[in-house]
């Protein structure tokens, strides 16, 4: 390589897994998706969307829907920023009022 010397090459890890090693089990879930209550989307529709987008069972989808309705919002999923952005886009496609933010 141009200007190369005999000193050892420094290897910069490309991924978090490389940096931390495969044994690291810290979950990579610093982002969350929040769905906010709105007066137009019906209960059954929101339940269906949660099942369809996240693959949740009916009972879990319904519990999250009720949380949205009665508490005004619910954390419906978590994951990497990219995954959350993609799912928020899908939820917007279904007309749900969804946002993502850092979990704190």
């Amino acid at each position, binding site marked *: 390589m141009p200007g190369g010397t005999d000193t050892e090459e420094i290897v910069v890890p490309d991924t978090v897994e490389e940096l931390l090693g495969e044994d690291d089990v810290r979950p990579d879930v610093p982002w969350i998706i929040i769905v906010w209550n709105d007066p*137009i989307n019906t209960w*059954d529709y929101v339940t269906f969307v949660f099942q369809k987008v996240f*693959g949740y*069972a009916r009972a879990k989808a319904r519990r999250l829907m009720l949380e949205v309705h009665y508490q005004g919002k619910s954390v419906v999923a978590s994951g990497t920023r990219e995954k959350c*952005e993609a799912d928020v886009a899908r939820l917007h*496609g279904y007309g749900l009022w969804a*946002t993502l*933010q850092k979990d704190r």
Partner: protein
Amino acid sequence: MARTFRRRRDGRITVRLRADEVALLRIVARDVLLIIAAPPEGDVGARLYPRAYLDPTEEDAENEFRALVHHDLAEQRHAALAMLLDKLPAVDPDAAIQAGDEAGADFDLTADEALQWLTAVNDARLVLGTALGITEDDDGDFAPDDPRYDLGTCYHWLTFRQTELVEVLLDGIGEAGTDDD
């Protein structure tokens, strides 16, 4: 009254609409198609294309999200409404309303088409509901002398039809989940 949506054994969904329902749906879908193409500033636009980030320090990410997603979302919405309209026979609204109870349309939707119908009808409800100022307490049951009465009736009709379709789709998807939980 006959059911609007019926699930067939092969997974397709049969749709049956009266002539006046076809006329109403065509009028609504055409209007919403125009609104989707050029969403107005204000509540309706914000409801169709909400922010992904509420945190004002994420403005760069928000702009990137809008740039990436909005065009696709608009195309997806347009395609769904266009498909819905495509399935409906052209009818003369006056004649259709005269015809009343007469059968207006009878056709099948594939599973994917049924999903498009669902989101198209929901988009119409979002547009109408937002324009009508629907809230939890004021859900569109306007008095007959209220100027919003006709549109409110239309909104409710869409809600009933959508609820029927969701029922059929929930039956199809079943109770079990596919996630790891």
